[in-house]
């Protein structure tokens, strides 16, 4: 085995929790997770039975006070009909069921942690769910070269708030499990502001002229995961949906 020159091991690296990074910006490094039920339904909703009877209370929808400012998402009438049809057919249509990429802002409020790795030129957000990831360019690279599930993210600082402008979406992702959806005209602007050492205030303004009558906003706190030695683990769910998606093609079907 080739050995490089044996040098003394570096001192134990510490993960700085200080409020500022070396380049003077708010320090967003860390592992974060929301506590809202936004992924079930962005709008306020009471608890309800789930779509799978065998799951009983495990599959039931928890209640949520809603994260939409003004409570209602401003759908165009025909788009509202589409949302309702989406909900009625959600087991077949919700991309989350198939372990597809969650898009933005849904990735933020999935019930899984994500990790921010912050450098001056790029801010990487790595999501535990389906190892989705996005790189926030702190220098504008120009228009997105191609549409994608997670869009292209361009960030800049406004005072102590990280503002992220996301464009270049395809029309495939949903905003939640309630059928809230968009087209490829989607444009999202996020704002991340540190709120004390262990939480972030998060806002996202959403516009899509094909679906909504005006831009609308969601907001919620995001909390730091503080367990000792906390890390992201794998949620590589493709494997878990193969039976669902390809079971009918098995040589010997499962049942």
């Amino acid at each position, binding site marked *: 085995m080739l050995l490089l020159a044996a040098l003394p091991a570096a001192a134990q690296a510490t993960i700085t929790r200080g409020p500022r990074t070396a380049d003077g910006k708010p320090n967003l490094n860390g592992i974060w997770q929301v506590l809202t039920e936004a992924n079930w339904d962005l709008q306020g*909703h*009471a608890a309800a039975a789930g779509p799978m009877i065998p799951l009983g209370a495990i599959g039931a929808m928890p209640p949520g006070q809603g994260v939409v400012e003004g409570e209602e998402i401003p759908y165009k009438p025909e788009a509202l009909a589409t949302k309702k049809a989406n909900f009625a057919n959600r087991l077949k249509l919700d991309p989350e069921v198939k372990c597809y990429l969650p898009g933005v802002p849904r990735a933020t409020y999935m019930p899984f942690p994500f990790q921010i790795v912050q450098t001056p030129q790029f801010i990487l957000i790595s999501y535990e769910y389906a190892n989705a990831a996005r790189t926030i360019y702190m220098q504008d690279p120009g228009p997105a070269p191609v549409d994608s599930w997670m869009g292209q993210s361009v960030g800049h600082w406004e005072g102590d708030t990280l503002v992220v402008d996301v464009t270049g979406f395809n029309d495939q992702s949903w905003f939640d499990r309630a059928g809230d959806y968009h087209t490829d005209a989607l444009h999202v602007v996020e704002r991340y502001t540190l709120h004390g050492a262990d939480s972030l205030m998060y806002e996202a303004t959403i516009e899509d002229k094909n679906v909504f009558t005006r831009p609308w906003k969601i907001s919620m706190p995001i909390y730091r995961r503080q367990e000792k030695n906390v890390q992201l683990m794998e949620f590589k769910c493709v494997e878990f949906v193969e039976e669902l998606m390809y079971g009918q093609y098995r040589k010997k079907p499962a049942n």
Partner: protein
Amino acid sequence: MLFPGFSAERGSKKRRPSDLMNLRHVFVGVLAAALAVTAAGQGLAAKKAWTPARTADGQPDLQGVWTNATITPLERPADLAGKAYFAPSEVAAYEKRIVENANVDRRRSDVTADVGLAYNEAWWDRGTHVVKTLRTSLIVDPADGKIPALTPDGERRAAAVAEQRRLHPADGPEDRGLTERCILWPTAGPPMMPSAYNNNYQIFQGQGYVAIMVEMIHDVRIIPLDGRPHLPSGVRQWLGDARGHWEGNTLVVETTNFTDKTRFRGSSENLRLTERFTRTDPDTILYEYTVNDPATWTKPWTAQVTMTKSDSRVYEYACHEGNYGMTGILQGARADEKNSAKAGGK
């Protein structure tokens, strides 16, 4: 608010009927003016106003374990029509009669009655006393002690529910009562009404909150006092959504956002409930509620229950976890259908 004949020591104060009539009119008049509450009694001279202690954050202290079991019915019985209060001298005999009657051995020789009527007072905790106000009904308004008339819509809904129950007594769990389904008990409501047993509550107060733990069925009503708005109107809950504030020594709780399945005495989802909790002495909370549901009743109505300090604890009532009743009832219904189908030669 203090009330005529109302005292921790039952029967120790004597009231003349004319005094009672005057005071009752005053009381009803105040209610009709929609409840401006003052801490001092309304012209009730004899009893010294009692001031509750304060919690650490300055709320009048309602804390402790309380029971609201009582033999006083919600509505005034027909044979007491026109009689709003018991005289203190009448109370003991009345209580004795009611309690003995409840404990009569009704078991007969046939199996059905043997099962259905086999429960005596050992199985219940329906109370042994009338309410401390000595009223003959929990309802204090309307004056006749009866629930006001239903609106046409209220009647229609009630009839539909009754018809459904008649035709489909046990097709599925949704046809059974909320208590049998272990979903909601009358003691929780709200309003919080005495029921068959375990009429127990524990009240906790903390920074800006009052929390009422209801034994049946381990429901906790957490009532914020900070004036925040109610939940969005699109969100409906079995126990509604409560908001509280103090008016002097009275906790006033406004509850909205009920579901259309809660159906308190046939109420609609538009029910607006106002509850008032006043600790009138160390062992008593006067609990009053006003039901406001123009879709169902032609006018609002108000009831009072006295809650008595208990030296017991609140137990865990794991209703659903031991719900043999539901399985038995549904299986029994299915067996009945099969048997009658066989008998009918189908």
